[in-house]
């Protein structure tokens, strides 16, 4: 019913909106022309990746690009995620739950069965990232899903997690990544240039740490604020 009532009004367009619509349409036409006229055959980075694939220590080209060839990007990106958590934590305290509701038996069973499976699958994805699809981001996302599942069921112990543990987990990824980079700087003379033969295992180490902190980051973003005990604890020590 609501639909029909608004349907009648649709013909009268606001002049400002009409202008916006025109501008958007012209931008769309310009971009469409750009898409049609781009020559994709000349510029290719895939050949370079395929050429140096053996040096990267992993078989999957996407993981090689992410963590080896463009490791700098990924390092900064993990930092960006950390910054997002810093932003959220400085804005507000974790507001949920407003009024806690007891989870029903079905939901408890689902959480109990599903969470270990998700954690297992997350690390499987991280491990598989070296050869096929998968890697730190995907594994971290699944891990974050497991954490969100526990958060959303408001299990009683989840409120009592000391925030220091959380901080350690959040920092693990960037810290390991940065540490490896500095180690490479000392050993090889270049930032993030992994030593020959060690690249594969170093990448796996970095990926595991990053997956843990990405998962925790996503869970903290979902929780929507810093833990309750965070600031008081900081003041005491």
């Amino acid at each position, binding site marked *: 019913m*609501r639909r029909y009532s*608004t*349907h009648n*009004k*649709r013909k*009268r*367009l*606001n*002049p*400002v*909106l009409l202008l916006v619509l025109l501008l958007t349409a012209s931008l769309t036409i310009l971009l469409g022309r750009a898409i049609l006229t781009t020559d994709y055959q000349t510029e290719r980075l895939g050949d370079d990746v395929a050429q140096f694939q053996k040096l990267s220590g992993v078989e*999957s080209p*996407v993981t090689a690009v992410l963590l080896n060839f463009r490791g700098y990007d990924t390092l900064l990106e993990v930092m960006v995620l950390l910054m997002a958590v810093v932003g959220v934590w400085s804005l507000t305290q974790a*507001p*949920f739950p*407003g009024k806690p509701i007891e989870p029903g038996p079905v939901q408890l069973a689902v959480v109990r069965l599903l969470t270990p499976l998700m954690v297992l699958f997350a690390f499987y*994805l991280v491990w598989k990232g070296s050869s*096929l*699809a*998968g*890697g730190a*981001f*995907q594994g971290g*996302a*699944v891990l*974050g*899903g497991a954490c*969100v599942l526990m958060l*959303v069921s408001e299990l009683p112990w989840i409120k009592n997690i000391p925030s220091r543990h959380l901080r350690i987990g959040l920092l693990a990824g960037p810290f390991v990544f940065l540490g490896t980079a500095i180690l490479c700087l000392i050993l090889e003379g270049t930032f993030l240039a992994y030593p020959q033969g060690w690249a594969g295992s170093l990448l796996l180490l970095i990926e595991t740490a990053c997956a843990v902190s990405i998962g925790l980051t*996503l869970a903290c*973003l*979902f929780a*929507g604020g810093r833990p309750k005990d965070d600031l008081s604890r900081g003041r005491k020590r």
Partner: protein
Amino acid sequence: MMPYSILTAFDIVLISTLLWLAWKMLRSEDLFKAVVLFISFGLLMALAWVRMRAPDVALAEAAIGAGLTGPLFLSALRRMERLHKDERRVNIDEERKSETIFHTQQKETP
């Protein structure tokens, strides 16, 4: 040759459903409906990544775009509405009036 044309039909249906979903999501007057449409949008995007032969991106999208962003929006929606619990009906009316710009009303000059 036959599977190729089937896959092209698959692409066409997939893309038109995606565009339809996005359009309905952005112009629906009910925010909850928009969020549900966003979740299904993420699911279909994962299928699109699969068709573009980007399984890594599809994994990330299935976990993040469909799995995590939807709950994020749902809890933000609740957090916003929790303040106005008693004025919820009013809220929705306001939403309906001011949010449905796509089926736009006339501007009233003060």
